[in-house]
């Protein structure tokens, strides 16, 4: 069952077109990674899917339903959760409050969910009454992931989760992502760290210059010479 699909999506910023008709899909329970050089449009794709950017042509389907161009708030209600690359926590709010904000639209008692989510991130749980701004980069990234989980999303959209993290944190983050996926959440992520991310992905896409270049399983892409030469160098 296809959780998320983008069909021939054309979008960009204002007058500038970045994506010239990109198609991807995520099946239920998958981890899908999108890699490619700078300027390829990876982040743009994620933002368009989530409704942060207008989709000029093409369609976005969620669970088969056409959700093209709906607002981020609507997407959240439908079951998507998005973690931006930077500025992805509320620095002045405590960890606890950050999570509460993640659950803003829940009408029910979210306390048990908070405990459940925090259990996944013990490092963060210890500091639940600390202001998020005082956390380290890695802890903040964990908090950002935790916040996104508060609504039991069907799919998580992650924009470069390992960006500007120390190598040991990178490993930790990817482990967590895998844990989250195992609990039933589909994941689509954009990554610069192609090697690490492809290792844990079911499938991957390579984008370049706003268009699809390659597609395949995580393993295949890892082993592919073409990909290896051009994109896995770092």
């Amino acid at each position: 069952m296809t959780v998320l699909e983008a069909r021939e999506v054309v979008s960009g910023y204002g007058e500038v077109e970045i994506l010239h008709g990109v198609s991807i899909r995520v099946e239920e329970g998958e981890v899908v990674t999108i890699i490619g050089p700078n300027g390829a449009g990876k982040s743009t794709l994620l933002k368009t899917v989530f409704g942060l950017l207008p989709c000029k042509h093409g369609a976005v389907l969620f669970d088969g339903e056409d959700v093209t161009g709906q607002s981020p708030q609507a997407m959240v209600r439908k079951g998507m959760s998005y973690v931006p690359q930077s500025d992805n926590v509320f620095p002045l709010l405590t960890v606890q409050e950050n999570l509460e904000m993640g659950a803003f639209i829940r009408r029910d008692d979210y306390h048990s969910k908070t405990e459940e989510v925090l259990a996944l991130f013990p490092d963060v749980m210890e500091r639940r009454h600390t202001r998020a701004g005082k956390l380290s980069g890695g802890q903040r990234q964990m908090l950002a992931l935790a916040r996104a989980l508060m609504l039991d999303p069907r799919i998580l959209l992650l924009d470069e989760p390992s960006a500007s993290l120390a190598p040991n944190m990178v490993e930790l983050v990817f482990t967590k992502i895998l844990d989250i996926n195992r609990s039933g959440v589909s994941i689509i992520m954009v990554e610069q760290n192609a090697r690490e991310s492809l290792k844990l992905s079911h499938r991957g896409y390579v984008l370049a210059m706003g268009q699809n270049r390659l597609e395949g399983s995580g393993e295949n892409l890892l082993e592919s010479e073409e990909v290896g030469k051009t994109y896995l160098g770092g």
Partner: protein
Amino acid sequence: MVPESTGFAELLNKARERYPAVFDNLGTAALWVLFAGLLIAALILYTNLFVVGVIFGSIIALGAIGLTLIYGIMKFAHFAHGDMMMLAAYLAFFALTGRIVGEKTEVDLGWSLDRLPGATTGLGPLSFGYGLLLAMLVALIATVALFVALDNLIYRRLRQRGSGIVIFAMVSLGIAIVARSVILILWGPEPRFYVPGIFPAHEFPFGIKLKADQIFIFATVAIAAILVYFLLFRTRIGKAMRATSDNPELARVSGIDTDQVIRWTWAIGGALVAVAGVLLAIQAQLKPELGFTILLPLFAAAILGGIGSPQGALIGAMIVGITQEVSLGVEISIAGRDILPQILPLAPGYKFAVAFVILILILLVRPQGLFGAKA
């Protein structure tokens, strides 16, 4: 032909760049110590002025908290804030007395709050009766409705268009002018009072002299501040407001209903404006120009405290209020010789200029304010 740009701010920036950790912390610590030291000195040496400053500061605080919330959540400087305070004060006057006055006009609307039995009898030692309290409530409801309506009709459209600062500033200034004109048209330029007459000050230890009304003002602000605290820190919508102020993009992305947040912001801002306006009119008088005059202290307090931080606005307002009052009475003399006789004590006309000086200093030294995050 034009010389190199140098100056204190420039040096400060260079120092901060080269030694960020040390200097910034040192700078902030120094600022806190300086303020604390000055405040303690003022408290001890000029206790009465200090206390009056606290009273005045608390009035500014209510306005500044609303201002900083609007600024932090909607990212624009609400230049109409001061004139709206005055408008609310006059609305209370109207509710209380039912009169429209001015040039050759004395219109009485037939019924007003002061006709209720005992409405004007002073409550205890206060100068006013429960009529004014009801009038304040009326003004509060009216102001909240007005703020929400203005947002729906005007500010929301500007936001949706992505309008720039110029437009927001001009529109809010235009609204301020309209508010002031309405006051002038309906109630004229002469100063007015809720309750005519002079009321005595009571004596307290340490040379403090306060009118009962002033204690009422302080108590009201304290209650209001506690209510605002509860709202912002213990309710869902309050936390959402803080979150939106902190990181508006992420708030949107998290699914927070920003429309609801904005409506609540205007509502709270309006309520605080109404109360602050009535208190200001009790403390000083009802005068149309007062709205614009108070704008600088409001902004100084909000910026000093750090835009977006209600606690900061509260403290900033206290500092502004105390500094204003104390500077009117302070004389610095060393070994019997008067230092700065031309400037201190300050001539009364310069009172509000003090807020401006504080504003400029803060913008130069620490633009994010006491509680603000570095951009």
